């Protein structure tokens, strides 16, 4: 009996130890990334934004883009999405909506509202997809197309769009994302300037809930009062401002969000397009691109633009949010597992030796260890299995990892980009960040852990996502 109790006591102590070491290492890593990001952001502080892009507008050089919009049961929002895409500030682009076997009236809405006619087009099937039934083109807007095909999922729809696209750059866009007018100017600028060296770029995503949006344009930036939304805003700030800028600087960026990314088509086709049997298709593509870049010993890059260019609808209730987070974690795991050979492999440069391990240890295993920490903390204290001092330490580190990093991200945003105009915004964001470790973070840990469990039990779906519609 005493042996058993001793054993449990040891287990707790060892567990606590693992937790502590992990937190300290992870915390240090984040601090380094934070500093890299802060320097980068500060540089652009107060730069007259429109000036660098005026040249691009007049330029014939500006590479045309094919915007691919996968659509499944989007009859409510697809028209306004496409309408708002039509007012983008960019010389040449086409909009390819891919109707992925919708069961509702997505297709007929598009055909009717855009006066579309069927065209006979020879599609180059460079990527394998589910069969395409027909292709339509609008008679009022020459650059709007609809591909009607058999259902195959988001990746399959994107691949079909790629097959059809006429231009050398493709942009994958979610149906409910709103792009800023100058989004493409901002994203394509570095791509053009780099003389083809940059083959992929991700834009910064901000949360649209709470902003006033008219006819597909963000008129005024606001902050929702819903606590869940506020927390998500903070999370996005943290992820984008700190994680992505820092990693992008050294070509280690592994996530170009599925909500908005621009890629050079040839590269995407070269690596085989989007993968259809994963839920994290956006990240998986980027990992595969990095892999190919290193295998070819090319000096191509994938970068990230910190200037917010894309606004998206965030889930406002727990159930939806939970589903989303579990799904993301599953996708993360799948993307990494498929390319596990790259981990710690020097052949893949810093992506292999730094990024991948980072994503495995911190992003993927993070929830497991954090959960371990919570467990030990609560039960350890309850049953006096750990020392009070150690408990304080553990809690302090949890707080560091959660609230402190989030508070820093909020302040970093205010110090550099300042997209939230009101004083009350700053106050609300900071206070909620302060409280993060007490409620929100444990919740996300449980949800992500849930994703792991789903993987082990073989759950593979996307779940239903209710669209509210954010445009008036």
């Amino acid at each position, binding site marked *: 009996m005493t042996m058993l109790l001793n054993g449990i006591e040891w287990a707790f102590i060892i567990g606590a130890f693992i937790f502590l070491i992990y937190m300290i290492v992870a915390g240090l890593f984040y601090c380094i990334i934070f500093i890299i990001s802060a320097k980068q952001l500060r540089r652009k502080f107060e730069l007259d934004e429109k000036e660098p892009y005026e*040249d691009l507008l007049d*330029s014939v050089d500006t590479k045309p883009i094919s915007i691919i919009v996968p659509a499944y049961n989007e009859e409510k929002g697809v028209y306004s999405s496409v309408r708002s895409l039509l007012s983008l500030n960019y010389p040449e682009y086409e909009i390819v909506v891919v109707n992925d076997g919708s069961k509702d009236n997505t297709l007929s809405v598009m055909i009717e509202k855009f006066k579309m006619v069927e065209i006979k*087009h*020879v599609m180059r099937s460079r990527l394998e997809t589910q069969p395409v039934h027909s292709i339509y083109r609008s008679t009022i807007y020459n650059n709007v197309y609809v591909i009607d095909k058999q259902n195959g999922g988001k990746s399959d729809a994107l691949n079909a769009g790629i097959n059809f696209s006429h231009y050398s750059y493709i942009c994958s866009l979610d149906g409910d994302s709103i792009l800023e007018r100058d989004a493409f100017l901002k994203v394509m600028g570095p791509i053009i300037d780099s003389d083809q060296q940059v083959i992929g770029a991700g834009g910064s995503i901000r949360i649209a809930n709470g902003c006033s949006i008219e006819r597909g344009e963000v008129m005024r930036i606001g902050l929702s009062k819903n606590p869940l939304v506020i927390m998500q805003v903070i999370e996005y700030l943290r992820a984008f401002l700190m994680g992505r800028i820092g990693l992008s600087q050294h070509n280690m960026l592994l996530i170009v969000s599925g909500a908005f990314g621009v890629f050079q088509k040839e590269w995407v086709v070269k690596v085989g397009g989007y993968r259809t049997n994963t839920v994290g298709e956006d990240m998986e593509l980027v990992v595969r691109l990095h892999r190919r870049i290193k295998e070819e010993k090319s000096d191509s890059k994938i970068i990230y633009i910190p200037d917010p260019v894309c606004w998206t609808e965030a889930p406002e209730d727990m159930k939806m949010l939970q589903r989303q987070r579990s799904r993301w974690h599953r996708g993360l795991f799948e993307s990494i597992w498929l390319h596990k050979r790259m981990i710690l492999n020097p052949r893949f440069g810093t992506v292999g030796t730094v990024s991948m391990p980072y994503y495995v240890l911190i992003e993927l295993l993070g929830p497991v260890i954090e959960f371990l920490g919570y467990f030990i903390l609560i039960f350890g204290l309850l049953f006096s299995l750990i020392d009070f001092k150690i408990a304080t330490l553990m809690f302090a580190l949890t707080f*560091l990892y959660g609230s402190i990093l989030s508070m820093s991200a909020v302040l970093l945003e205010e*110090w550099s980009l300042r997209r939230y105009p009101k004083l009350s915004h*700053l*106050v609300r964001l900071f206070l909620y960040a302060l409280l993060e470790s007490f409620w929100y973070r444990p919740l996300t840990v449980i949800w992500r852990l849930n994703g792991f469990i789903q993987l082990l039990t073989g759950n593979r779906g996307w779940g239903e996502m209710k669209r509210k519609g954010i445009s008036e």
Partner: protein
Amino acid sequence: MQFKHSIRRMFFMIVISIPFIVGTVVTLIIVLCFLFFYLLWRKLVELKIKEKKDKLKSKIQPIIHDYLIRGEDVRTRLIQKQPYLYEAIEEVLEDASKLLKGTEIQERITVFAKLYLEDYYVSRLNHARWSIRMNTLYNIEDFHLERFSETLMYRFSESNSKSIEEAYQIMRTLATFQYESFLDELVKTTNVFPLFIYKSILRRLDDEHIDYLVRHIHAVNQTFELAIIDMIGERKDLSYLTTIEQKLQSEDSEVRIHSLKVIEILGFVTDLSNLVPFSESAHFTERMLFAKVCRMLKKERFKATLISMLSDESWFVRNAAGEALAAFSDGNIILEHISLTHEDLFARDMAQQWKGDKF
């Protein structure tokens, strides 16, 4: 037994470092709170300044507009020296520049900027912050403050700009000023700049200086040469057609390809025989461009070649050939015929696609 001891020791080590770590965390919280209050205060101050600046703007705007439109002297009426006065003036001038058109007005904007902003910019050009230096450079270009030409030229020839973006903006500005020493230097220098910056420069030059560069096209590096060729296409300038046709025979395939693209844009050649070799080129891009040029020219003598191109091995070439044939007045008939009778499947497919093209 040993194991238990080492665990105890580790335990002890942690106990020692607890105050350190907890202390760090508490310090961080305090620091962050301080930063928070600082940023909050700063935001408040900035919002107030913005209010004052907007008020100032609405006061000076009619005065400045009066000057721009009627030429009335304003010196006596703008003596406030608030720090945001410069920003206010810049913004009013920028807005006016977009709103009020006309050379006289643009000149007056320059005069006004010279008077109130020039000295301010001298110090701003050397500011520690990159974004401020860039903004200053942008404004120097927008307001045509040519007094800075020599300074900028010096920075260019000594290659001592602090960052590559500044170097590029300096080049653009010197181009806007039509600064001839800069153009000379650009032609002579062994430095090769990226294509996009050459084009950026060319877009800002007036006819006289473009002419100068075209006349020296043999003396420049390949990238600059390509930029000049592309520029002729952008300007849709037929007067340089002979130069382009000469370039069609260049040994450099990139030069040939860029020249073909320009021919496509211009839609005209003086000597059709210059084009013929391209239909059989080993580079598929050249064959494709040949077809695209044919689409613009619509010459009967190339119909047969286009038809044979419908079975080319490259999809791009086949597609361009199909599009070209569709442009002929009897294109539909030809394509209909091919879609039904040609022996090559690719050709039939391509003809099928292009025959009913309403667009």
